[in-house]
């Protein structure tokens, strides 16, 4: 490539002098193009690397826009609506108002101190982006910023993944990791456009913190450790999942200590990161003093002190020349240090200064814990243990590239690979415990798989290249080809190596392309639905939109008094406050179990008892979600048993067996009498008995459950139907004022 230009340079110059200007121009262009060819291999590689990274960056962004194309630029699901509402508040009223916000629109009559009970990272991030964009004079709406925040951070995550991969393996692995994570469904599920949730920025922060920490451990530089402390601070401000970091890093340090990999680099990295990270994290009001007071954070502190002991011992060892003396000293110090730690922990626990582990933490370590003790956690579908199919769905080929990558990591063990192995293994365990934690495992799985892919492909191409070189040099002289091949004796022992390598490369290419098509399909079909708007195929193959949720929320917003209180199951709380702009009794924050249980109790009581409860809560409207007409299965009747369980957990008057017949949950004629007459049943099926939902079926045929309902003659005494959406998905009832005495 390089020597091509030589004759050209000499010849064109005299010719150009005689030629008109136009050809001079082309000559100049020629020279320019030669210059571009003259790039050194390094520069070429850099160019390719940067352009691949740019493409991956763009790809990660645009693959998440399916939801905007299919539906519209809107906020998805439940929690994002709260985040959107708070971001709106932040941009309108400013930071201090936001920080001190007492929200009286939720948890009526208790209210909620928003500033002290949320992770502000996401909202502040979106608001800052919004302000910057406004400052650059792009008149965007805050909604657009919120919708695109998650894809933007997903793109940034790919860049971090590249650097992380480069740090633990090489730049090839980094590139592959960036490409894999850009389209991995496990991550896309939480970061499509509109999925404006903490996880969107938190995964970026998580990976950034880990990368910076590994970099700090590798270099032993204070600046990287400092950066990782700030990464940790950002993570703490964004998501409760920071607990994973503050436990994984000490665990990693522990493993390094046990395997005898203690070094000054590790000491600097961990101490700086822990101390600064802890202090910074305390600035988040929701976290506060948990780093020194809660059981979940004690491991980090223990490891911190352990490192000091290690350092001290090192120093003593250096000072004491006598090994025997040192042995004795070691024994005494270790015993007393461990003893002191244990006593401090015991005293802290006993005096209540250190709080015990929370239920959520327990349920992570023991998957069966939540089911027995905390129904409110178990009732959320994303807290269920993961099925194999969802692993396959979210990881596809990464699932079996993961062990291969682990093998490569173990083969080339270093501080960095130990970290990624530990991250991979622990997060995989958590992903098995809870569906939503697949998200946390995704970066690790992508990185480890990238190592597998990169190492394999590198080996295979190396084989191919060495072979082809020999073949080339052999073919220059046909006579000497026999001897040339005899020289490479290694090849002769494996005669099909080259073909094998080609076949394997093709196989790898096939697998990766399969992965790409799978990811695109999953993104477009499964993860791009906003779940506010439902889409279905009509009888003629046309697209039918069910926009009932927004219909109902907008009705509430426009046609109820501004101070009306709406009671619904907690799932819809955030949406009602954000879209309906009305006060709710409970919402998705679930901080007060008793309050939720009260609502659950009202829903599962008879109408007159429920009326008393609703009167005591000042309820004006009751909202239920009902899928019997459309066959929408995640409605309140299917969630009803959880209301009974949660209600019964606090109020023993509600007993689950009352609603079941022989342990079976049914709504047809054979249903339990209490079931047929409880408030939820009545509200869902009010006047449904007169409705013919499906041709050839009796009136009152529930399409979601496939049965004819048991109580067709529902009469309401204390409530009246206020609004029902066009597909009956949301039904709103007005609580009548009490009758006049006389």
């Amino acid at each position: 490539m390089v020597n091509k230009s030589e004759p050209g340079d000499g010849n064109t110059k005299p010719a150009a002098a005689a030629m008109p200007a136009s050809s001079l121009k082309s000559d100049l262009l020629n020279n320019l193009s030669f210059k571009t060819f003259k790039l050194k291999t390094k520069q070429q590689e850099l160019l390719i690397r940067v352009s691949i990274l740019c493409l991956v960056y763009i790809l990660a962004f645009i693959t998440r826009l399916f939801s905007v194309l299919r539906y519209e630029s809107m906020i998805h699901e439940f929690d994002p609506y709260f985040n959107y509402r708070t971001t709106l508040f932040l941009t309108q009223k400013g930071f201090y108002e936001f920080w001190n916000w007492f929200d009286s629109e939720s948890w009526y009559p208790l209210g909620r101190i928003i500033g002290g009970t949320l992770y502000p990272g996401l909202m502040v991030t979106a608001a800052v982006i919004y302000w910057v964009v406004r400052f650059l004079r792009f008149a965007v709406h805050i909604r657009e910023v919120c919708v695109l925040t998650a894809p933007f951070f997903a793109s940034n995550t790919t860049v971090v993944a590249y650097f992380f991969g480069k740090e633990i393996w090489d730049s090839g692995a980094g590139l592959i990791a960036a490409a894999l994570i850009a389209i991995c469904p496990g991550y896309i599920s939480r970061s499509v456009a509109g999925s404006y949730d903490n996880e969107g920025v938190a995964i970026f922060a998580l990976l950034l913190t880990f990368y910076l920490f590994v970099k700090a451990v590798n270099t032993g530089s204070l600046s990287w450790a400092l950066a990782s402390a700030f990464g940790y601070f950002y993570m703490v401000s964004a998501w409760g999942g920071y607990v994973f970091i503050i436990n994984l890093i000490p665990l990693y340090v522990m493993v390094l200590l046990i395997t005898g990999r203690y070094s000054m680099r590790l000491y600097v990295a961990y101490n700086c990161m822990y101390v600064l990270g802890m202090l910074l994290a305390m600035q988040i009001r929701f976290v506060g003093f948990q780093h020194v007071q809660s059981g979940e954070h004690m491991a980090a502190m223990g490891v911190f002190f352990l490192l000091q002991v290690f350092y001290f011992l090192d120093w003593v060892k250096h000072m004491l020349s006598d090994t025997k003396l040192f042995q004795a000293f070691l024994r005494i110090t270790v015993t007393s240090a461990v003893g002191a730690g244990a006593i401090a922990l015991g005293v802290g626990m006993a005096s209540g200064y250190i709080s015990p582990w929370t239920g959520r933490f327990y349920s992570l370590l023991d998957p069966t814990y939540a089911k027995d003790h905390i129904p409110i956690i178990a009732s959320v579908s994303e807290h269920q243990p993961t099925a194999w199919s969802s692993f396959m769905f979210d990881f596809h080929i990464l699932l079996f590239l993961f062990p291969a990558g682990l093998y490569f990591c173990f083969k080339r063990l270093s501080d960095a690979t130990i970290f990624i192995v530990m991250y991979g293994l622990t997060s995989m365990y958590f992903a098995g415990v809870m569906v939503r934690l697949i998200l946390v495992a995704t970066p690790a799985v992508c990185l480890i798989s990238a190592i597998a892919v990169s190492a394999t492909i590198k080996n295979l191409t190396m084989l191919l290249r060495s072979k082809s070189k020999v073949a080339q040099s052999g073919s220059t002289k046909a006579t000497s080809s026999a001897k040339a091949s005899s020289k490479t004796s290694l090849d002769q022992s494996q005669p099909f190596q080259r073909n094998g390598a080609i076949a394997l490369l093709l196989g790898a290419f096939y697998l990766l392309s399969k992965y790409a098509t799978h990811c695109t399909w999953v993104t477009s079909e499964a993860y791009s639905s906003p779940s506010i708007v439902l889409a279905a195929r009509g009888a003629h193959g046309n697209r039918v939109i069910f926009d009932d949720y927004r219909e109902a929320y907008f009705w509430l917003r426009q046609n109820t008094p501004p101070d009306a209180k709406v009671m619904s199951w907690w799932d819809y709380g955030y949406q009602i406050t954000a879209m309906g702009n009305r006060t709710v009794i409970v919402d998705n924050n679930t901080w007060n179990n008793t309050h939720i249980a009260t609502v659950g109790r009202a829903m599962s009581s008879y109408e007159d008892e429920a009326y008393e409860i609703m009167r005591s809560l000042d309820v004006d409207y009751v909202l239920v979600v009902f899928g019997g007409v459309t066959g929408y299965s995640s409605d309140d009747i299917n969630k009803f048993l959880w209301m009974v369980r949660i209600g019964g957990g606090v109020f023993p008057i509600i007993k689950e067996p009352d609603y079941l017949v022989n342990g079976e949950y049914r709504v047809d004629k054979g249903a339990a009498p209490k079931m047929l007459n409880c408030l939820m049943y009545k509200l869902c099926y009010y006047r449904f008995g007169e409705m013919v939902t499906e041709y050839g079926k009796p009136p009152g045929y529930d399409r979601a459950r496939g049965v004819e309902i048991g109580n067709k003659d529902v009469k309401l005494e204390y409530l009246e139907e206020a609004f029902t959406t066009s597909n009956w998905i949301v039904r709103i009832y007005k609580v009548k004022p009490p009758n006049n005495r006389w």
Partner: protein
Amino acid sequence: METEMGFSRFALFLFTIALLSSPVLSDLVLSKVDRRIYLTSQIVRYTATLRVENEGSELVSEVLLAFPELQAKNLAYLTVSVNEGKGKQKVSTDDLPIEVVSPKNMPPAVSFYSVTLPKGLAPGDSLTLDVMAVFTHALQPFPEKITQADIQLVVFQDSAYYLSPYAVKVQSLSVKLPEARIESYTKLENTKVHGSEIKYGPHEDLPAFSYSPIGIHFESNQPFSNAQEVEREIEISHWGNVQITEHYKLIHGGAQSKGEFSRLDFQARPNVRGASAIRYLVATLPPRAHSVYYRDEIGNISTSHLWSDSKKTELLIEPRYPMFGGWRTAFTIGYGLPLQDFLFQSEGKRFLNITLSSPMVELVIDKLIVKVVLPEGSKDISVSTPFPVKQWQETKISHLDIDGRPVVVLEKTNVVPEHNKYFQVYYKFNKLSMLREPLMLISGFFFLFVACIVYTRADISISKSSASYLAKQQWEEVQAAIQQVESIINRCLATHDKLEASLRDLSRTGDVQACKAARKTADGLLKDLSKELKPLLAFLQSSPSASQILPKVEDLVAKEKELQERVMTKHSTVVDAYERKSAGKDIENRVALQQQKITALKQEVDDLMEYIDEI
């Protein structure tokens, strides 16, 4: 029963103006008055044909029109024109100027509008005036609250006699109702009902300010769509688009809904259970409207339909839910229009010529705000409207604006479809200003790239004497040296290739001399190159940070030297053989061994180069 009672109470309440025999204002007499009132929609339209006679002795230049104050409050639109036609052929001229006046010695609770006649009315002359008035909120729902199953009944009140400061000789009134069903109406002498039309009169020779209240209570299931506020933003882009955004706050102004709303009933019999509900609205947009959207605060609304042909674009929108009496909704529609249809030039000024009001059919707007956003840098702005409106100026900051775009704001209350007329905004705008925003973007990116270039080229380390900085600098020097070495080796290899090529030429042409010359030049070149190589090697040997790579580089140089020699010897052997005219096969045999070594060496050199490259 209840309705009867309420109705009479209403009639009593309405008017207490005494039928005063006030002084005659001028000597005008209305010889014939025909009034028609259309109650077919929520907007009450009223036309009157007045035959005015001047019985006095002076020229009269203005005619007074009187409306009861309660009606005047609801009066949205009033035009008067002179009807000059004879017989049935009616030719109306332009609208006459009207102004509100309050003459002295007039009965209270009556508002007066003075119409200025174009030429004045000479004594003894007569002329015909066409009066058209439009009232909003003139239909009172009664009962005020109805259930979903009830039909909506409304009451309309007026006078059976034409209220006028002049004596009226002959007059008649006909009221057109939407449906034949009439709950009740005030019966006077000679009142007739034909289907859905009620006729009063003719009445003769009534003095000025005659008044006889009538009330009509009838069924009207027309949608009472009433926009409490409409904000209309017209944004002009000289890149070829007029963007219109309209925000509506809508309420159903009919009888309030009470009790349950049953979706089941509404779905089963929508025309009985929910007859008066607003189910859709129709907007007639200009032709070639594009990018139409329909949304509200919480997102897109999917229930809308759009038809378009060459004359108009028709948009049918359904609110998220059917609107019953008293229910509200709010939404936004937006669309783009081609600029050349609405923006023109005259006398060095540009002017926008576009309709003022909302394109919605039969919509009453309580408050209309029209904002015309002109491009940044527009000057000398003036507005001409067909009727008086409140107006002021604002600025709006939009994409890539520095000091904001000038906005002309017009405000008008009580707007009916009759107000949807063209108005003009004149302004001056320099076409070059259009390029400002693209240039800003271009320069923004340019400076971004420049900043990147500067960042990568500039040395921004703080301490220029720290060990790591020095090491880094040294390493960079070593890298540069190695790259130079590599390029020299590459040139050597290229010279080898040239030698080989000359050998091939030799076998083809047999020109020994040329081949020798080639060798000579190559020899000279290689010597030069090895001379160039020496200082570089010396530098690498002296530099401590090159210690790792040095053996490889030296190895490379040595190998290359060996290769060089081999190639030379091969070359001379072949040339010698040619000189001695040896057989081709003989030469090949002799060279074969050398060739093998050369190949092997080349391979080694290549490998070494690759290895060094990767560092």
